[in-house]
Every structure is written in C-alpha cells, then in structure tokens.
C-alpha cells in the first residue's frame, strides 16, 4: 500500500496572471464498475485514451470523403487508413471555435483545452490543462503512470498542465522502452524481487516533499503553485514506486515488447520518423496491455515543423505555404502522417485482449492544429477517432457537420465515453454543453 492517499478530488492548477485556475473534478471510480468487458479473472477492462498528433494540417480538398454515413469511400488523403476503416470514425466540417490569433497555436490550444491561448509577457501559452492531462488526473491513478507522452518528432509536445507547465515527451524509442519495461518492471508471472531500495527511494522523496512544503510557504503565490506542481510530480513518483513493490497484475495480454534500436540515424538528411514511430507505437500498445498507463499522447510531428520528410523537396511547413497549385508534396507528406496514424491503430488492434483487441477499449483521437496550412484555417478541422472505447463510440462512420458545429463537441463526447461525467467542455465561444450524439453509441 502506498503511504499516500491519493487525492480523490482532482485539482488542476495553473498560474494565470498571478491568479489560480482550479478545475475540480468529482471522483470517478464508481463509473468503472458498471459496464465493460472483463479480464480473464473477472476484473473489468479499463478504458484507454490516446492522442495522435501531426503538425501542419491537411488539404481539405483531398481530405473530406464525398459520402457520409457508414457506406462511404475514404478520401485520397485518408486512403492509408483503409485497413482500419471499420475501426475509424471520420468527423469533418467542425470548427475550433477560438479566435485565430497565433498561427498553429490557437488551434491546438482551442482543441486540446477548449480555451484560447493566453499571453504572459510577450509570449503565449495554454490557459489550462490539455485533455490528456484531464483524463490522466481523473483515470490514470490506477496504473503505474498517469500518462505517457512520446513522439518520433514530438519536440516539446502539446501536453500542458496549465500555463507554462508542459509535460515533455520522450522522442527516443529506446528511452521510452527503458522507462516502461526496464526500470523496475516486473512481467506477469515473474516473481517480484524484494528490493529494499524501493522503500528507501520513497523515504528520500518524503524528505523532498518536506523541503518543498517549507519553500512553498515562504514564496509568492505564483511560485507556491509551481512548487505544488513539483510536489504533485514527486507524489506521483512515490505512487509509481509503490506499484513496483506490489505483485505484478496477472494480465494475459501483457508481454515485454521487442527492444528498440539504440539509434535511428538520418537517411539522406531525413529523420527516420516512420521507423521510430512504429517501434514506439508497439511499445505503448504493450504499456497499455500491461496496464502501465491508460492515457498516452503520440506527438508524431509538431506544429510548424519544417521537417524534411522522405522524398520531400523542402521542409513540411515551408511547403504548406509555398508549394503552388494542389500542393502534391504536402499531399504526400500528409499521407505519410496518415500511414503512421494507421500504424498506431494497427498496433493496438494487434494485441488480443479479453474477447477482442486492445483497440476495443481505446478512444484514439487523431488531429492536427489547423486544416489548410496555407492560411492556418480552423474551419473544416481534421478529426479522426479510432476504437470504440469499450463500445461507447461508433466506428466505421463518416460524420459530416453541415452546420459547422464546434470541435469541442467531439472532445466532450470522448471525455464522456472515457467515463468523465462532464456537463460541458470549453470556455467562451468554444463552450459546449452537448457532445456529438451522432458518434456516440
């Protein structure tokens, strides 16, 4: 048993011009016992959430499928998802309803936090927590890690706890593997080795919390929030160490995945994004199967990235602005991104669990920060959803919003499908109090 009781009330705080943003969420444990398929031992399968992000948007002319409903043909840009078509819902025609002030930033802030970005000093940051953090705080307490962020070209990622508080992603496949499956990991069926150092590490962290508590009480209000965030991380680590001291859960689907290569050197000056992404997708699939985490974010590529993709004649961002005509090079890069999203879903589909596959229990949101890169449009926003979240979301569907509904409705549907009993999502123009019923079961 951990010596720390976890907060039942989940608090997400951030500094907002010296003030405090508090988002209080009620406890959710009750929701997990009502429905769901079971593990072999009768315990219930958890729900899992994934985010797959690619930067620089898409080309609406080649993105939106012609037909709607279940009987539709994938568009040229979505063709790489053909093998996952039955597990996929495509939502088109929605709009991220925040002022489009900062190119590539307003859209990601609007979709992921339901709020416009805020300005502090001369710089911009997210005003509140992103959806992966909201879900990790609410649901992640039962697994070893609340959330895991990674991505082949993630750069700083887009996971925020609040203003200027980012969760840095892992970009090195070997390091991601080591974090989850090497350091202290005990596979099901293995005898845990009693390690006195685990308890000692927790004692050290107790001392760290004591130091932080003293400091918190003498610094400014704003700094006390920063220290509380630090303390939350320390307690999180204590909890995850405590999990390692327990017997490993008996999960039939769990096994240690293959270890990634140490290095993925550039080829012709192009990073090996696909190879890195795929091995990290395999790693994270097993992290879910082994219940090491229930929430992940894969920042495959980042907003404004000028990455040289294989065969591309210029950086991705440059091409979105400067390539003339139908932008065949942007088209080819966006297709590569969709191939990687397809692999993300396939990696989850490949793992058998219960009566189905790992993907059954997942909701994986695929999105970018804009639609048409050339003009940073927030209309006709690209939204893809993989998995049914334990039968709560429809699959195999193209839903088209003819009334330019808010993208926040999709987010609210996803959060509710994950079990958060939220009445609304977002603020200001991005506020919604109903989900997108067409994609809900």
């Amino acid at each position, binding site marked *: 048993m951990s010596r720390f009781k*976890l*907060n*039942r009330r989940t608090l997400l705080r951030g500094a907002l011009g010296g003030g405090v943003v508090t988002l*209080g969420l009620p406890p959710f444990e009750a929701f997990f016992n009502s429905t769901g398929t079971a593990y072999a031992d009768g315990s219930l399968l958890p729900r899992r959430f994934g985010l797959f992000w690619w930067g620089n948007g898409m080309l609406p002319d080649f993105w939106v499928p012609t037909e709607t409903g279940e009987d539709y043909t994938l568009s040229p840009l979505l063709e790489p998802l053909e093998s996952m078509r039955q597990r996929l819902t495509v939502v088109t025609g929605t709009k991220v309803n925040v002022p489009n*002030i900062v*190119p590539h930033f*307003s859209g990601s802030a609007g979709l992921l936090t339901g709020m416009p970005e805020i300005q502090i*000093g*001369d*710089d911009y*940051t997210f005003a509140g927590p992103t959806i992966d953090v909201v879900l990790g705080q609410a649901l992640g307490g039962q697994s070893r890690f*609340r959330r895991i962020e990674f991505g082949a070209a993630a750069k700083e990622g887009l996971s925020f*706890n609040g203003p*200027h*508080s*980012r*969760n840095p992603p892992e970009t090195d496949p070997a390091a991601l593997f080591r974090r989850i499956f090497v350091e202290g990991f005990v596979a099901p069926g293995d005898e845990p080795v009693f390690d*006195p*150092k685990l*308890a000692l*590490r927790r*004692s*050290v*962290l107790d*001392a*760290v919390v*004591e*130091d*932080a*508590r003293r*400091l918190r*009480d*003498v*610094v*400014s*209000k704003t*700094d006390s*929030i*920063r*220290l509380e*965030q*630090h*303390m*939350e*991380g*320390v307690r999180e*680590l204590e909890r995850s160490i405590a999990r390692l001291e327990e017997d490993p859960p008996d999960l039939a689907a769990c096994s240690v995945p293959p270890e990634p290569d140490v290095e993925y050197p550039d080829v*012709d*000056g192009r990073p090996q994004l696909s190879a890195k992404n795929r091995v990290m997708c395999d790693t994270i699939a097993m992290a879910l199967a082994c219940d090491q985490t229930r929430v992940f974010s894969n920042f495959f590529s980042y907003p404004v990235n*000028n*990455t*040289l993709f294989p065969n591309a*004649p*210029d*950086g991705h961002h*440059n091409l979105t602005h*400067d390539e*003339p005509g139908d932008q065949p090079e942007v088209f080819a890069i966006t297709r590569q991104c969709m191939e990687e999203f397809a692999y993300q879903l396939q990696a989850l589909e490949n793992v058998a669990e219960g009566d189905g596959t790992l993907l059954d229990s997942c909701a994986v949101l695929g999105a970018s920060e804009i639609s048409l890169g050339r*003009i*940073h449009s927030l209309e006709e926003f690209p939204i893809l959803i993989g998995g049914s979240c334990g039968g709560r979301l429809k699959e195999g569907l193209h839903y088209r919003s003819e009334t330019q509904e808010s993208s926040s409705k999709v987010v609210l549907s996803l959060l509710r499908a994950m079990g958060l009993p939220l009445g609304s999502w977002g603020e200001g123009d991005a506020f919604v109090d109903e989900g997108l019923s067409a994609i809900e079961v």
Partner: protein
Amino acid sequence: MKHLHLLLTASICVGCATEPVPVDPPEPRLRRLTQDQYRNVVADLFGADVVVPPNLEPDLTVDGFAAIGAALGSISARGVEQYEEAAYSVAGQALGSEADPAALVPCTPSGAVDSACAEAFLGDLAFRAWRRPVSAEELGRLVAVTEQAGESLGDFYEGVQFGVAAILQSPNFLFREELGEDDPDNPGGRRFTSWEMASRMSFLLWNTGPDAELLAAAEAGDLVTDDGLAAQADRMMADPRARRGIRAFFTELYKLQRLDDLEKDPTVFVHMGDDVGAAAREETLLNVEALVFDEDADFREFITSDRTFVNPKLASIYNIRSPVREGFGEATLDADDGRRGFLGQLSFLALNSHPINSSATLRGKFVRETLLCQSIPDPPADVDTSIPEPSGNAPTLRDRVADHLSVDACAGCHEIMDPIGLGFENFDALGRWRTTQGGAVIDPSGVLDGVAFDNAWQLADVVAEHEKFGSCIARSLFRFGVGHLEEPGERPSVAALGADLEASGFRIHDLVLSLVTSPVFRQTAEVTPRTPRLFFGDDS
C-alpha cells in the same frame, strides 16, 4: 595588472558618473536551474568526470530566454523521474563501489551507520549545493534517510548515496530561492541577501553555483556592499569560468542551441552534416570570447570584424583557405569574400533560413528583434503567406517577395524586415556565397532606417552603428541576468545600463560589471505569500 585596474575604474565610475536611478522592482521569483546549470553544479560538487544522464527536465524558453522560462516553469512529473534517475546516477558514480568515496567524504565511517560522519559530509555538501546555510531540521532529514539506508543496505557509502540523492532532488537545489531581506540602506525597500547575491552573481557570470571564495564573501556579508560586490565581480570576470557564463548568454540571445537541430537538405548542400551546426556555434562563440575576454574590445566589432575563427569545414563553406588542418584557427576575410562579422557567419545565415531556401523575412526579423530590440507582430493567422515560385519574370527572392511589400496588409511589417534581409541574399540558405539566382544577378542593396547600403559588407556597419545596438545588448543581458522582462520601474535602470555600455566604448566586460553592481540587480520587493489554501487534499 593594467587590465584589472581599468575594470575597477570602470565599475566605480558606474556608481559616480551618473545619478543613481530609482528602482521599483517586482516580486522575486524562484528560478529553476537550467540543464546546463544543473550539469555545471554537479561537476563542481563531484568532479568533471561524473556523467549526468542526457535527459533532464527541458529548459522552457519564454520571451527568447531559458533564463526567463526558468522563472515561470515548474517541474513536470516526468522531470521528477529524470531528476531522480540523475541523482542516483551521480551519487553512485561519486560514492559507489567503482568510485573512491573516501576522497569525497572527510571522515572515516565507524560502521554502516555513523551519524556524525554522515552529518559532517552531508552538511557541507548541502551547504554548497543549496548555496546557503542548512538548518538543523533540513540536515536532520538528510541524515535520517542516510541512516535508514545504511542500516537497510549494510554499508555506509551505499547509505550516504541516498542522502546525496535527497540533496540533489530537493527544491532547495533545483530552484534558486532568492527572496530578499529588508534593506537597511533603503528604508521600506528590500534587497537580496549576501547569500542570494552570491547565487545571482555566479549563475549569471559563471552559469554555475558559487565557489568557496564567493560563499565566504557571502557569509562575511560582503555581497551587500558596493566594494565587496565589485571586488568579487572583478575576480569572477577574470576567472576562466566567466567565459562559460558569457557563452551561455550569447547562446541564448542568438538562439545558437537551435544549431543542434539545423535542418538543411544534404542533397542540396553537400557540406551539410551533423558537425556543421556545432562548428558554426563554436565560430560565433570564439569571436565573442576573443572580443570580450582576450581583447576587451569594442563589441561592435562582433558585427564588423574581418577576423573570424573557422575549422576546415567552415572554411570550405566560406570558400576561404583553412588556417588549420583540424580544430579552429584565426582567419581574415576581405571584401572579395563578401562576408564579415556575425552577420556573415553560418550561425546567423543558416539559422534564419529555410531548409533549402534563404529567407529575407527571417533574417530581417532577427536583425530587428534580436540585434536592435524592435518588436514585430506575428502575421495574422488567416492570411496566405505564400510567395510566388521562381519564374522567368521573378528569378530572385527580391522579385518574389515584392508582393509582401506591395500589399498593404503585409507591407506594414514586411517593409521593416525584408529590405534588411534582402541585403544578405548573396548568401544561400546554408551561408554559401552566391552572386546570381535563376540566372539573374542578385541585388543586395537597400536602406536600413534611412542609411543606405550596397551589400552585406556595408550593412554590417549600418547595424553596428545603429542607435539601438548598444541598448539592445544591455536590455538583453538584463533580462538574462534577472530572469524577467523589465518592469516599468526598472526601465530607467536598464536604459542607464545601455548608456553606460556606450560610454565604455561598448565593452561587454564593463556592462556585466555595471549590471551586477546596479541597484536593479540587487533590489527586490517583498513577497506576498500565498493565502491559506482551500484545497490540498491529503497534504495539509
């Protein structure tokens, strides 16, 4: 030494030549150690051979500086894991079975648990790591975990590693606590304490924590006096570690860390390889070091000097004869080479370009924002920023960006950036010299704030002589040194720093001394602590 004498004179004159400027400073903020600072302090405490794991909480860059982000960001849950891993790795390397723990621990332990020995070792280490006296309660916690570990593991040196790990994971180490005290010389005002001034100076000047001499000066109360500060500042600027501090400043200012991720298409640029970015950074920093430390020169030469330092790779890109077979050597450029000064260096030219094409806008923006401290708004989010493809009618970039300059909505900003950037069009996206583009001769002439230039060689003079050049460096060093944008109550002091820099003949050395002895670096405001908390779950 003549040199030292000049410095002392200069720093004294800062206080006497001009009227003191009143300061209205903001509330003090905690600053997190940057990655480099963490590594430097660990090397100071445990030796340069100790290897810190590569991944630590990333620096947060805000308003152009990690130094400012350090005062805003917190530590993520992942960062806590990484700091833990680093702490045990460092402790193990310093005190583990492969190390020579007796070299670090000043006493011989009597057994697996020896509280007095643990207290002696950890007390001194925590004092140096936390940069201030350690309370009995704090030391008690460190000794307690050490005793518990020694008993559990049956070995003193194994046990003491847990005490070391506690020191290195503590917010007392990871954050700089500089909260100030009542200022007896300024009733009603607050100043940073002598201990806090030691940290402020050492992290600014050396990019690491204070050494023993500085801590001794702090303990003696010297660092709240003008003379004490000036004496330590002179000593510190004469120390080789000052090169590290100045390098850190210019690396942040010119965003040279981005050279690690330089994206250039090697199928277009045959010189491109993993070593190019690092070499470019070294060239720029060697120029800074030579001007600031070896020559105490007018820093405008950074922009106008025909001397630079290159390795064979850079020499081949610049198409000049390499002065050395390996490493860096001094080279002299002439007008035929077309380039001189920082604005002719790859680190400026390549970083402010696209992977394949040069960018007049990015280069002009850098000159405006970073060298002249003029701000330019972001383009509106919903405009089409594309420029026409090269064609027979528009072969050069100047022809192609003409749109920016003719469309009203764009021109407002682009006409203050593009004409400067077009002055560098003789350099391609990597920084190679060229005279034609698409068969047409490149025209690099232009006007910067009313001063005409024919090419980049002349443009260097225009930038260096610009009235904002000196005050911009002063403002940047202030932001880097204090970790925040200047508040209204600090602006007169920052302006005075700029005036001092110009009066000194643009000596960076003098600017640093002016800053650390200035009230704007030494005074602070009272902390308003948090109100009693309404929510904190189990942690009351």
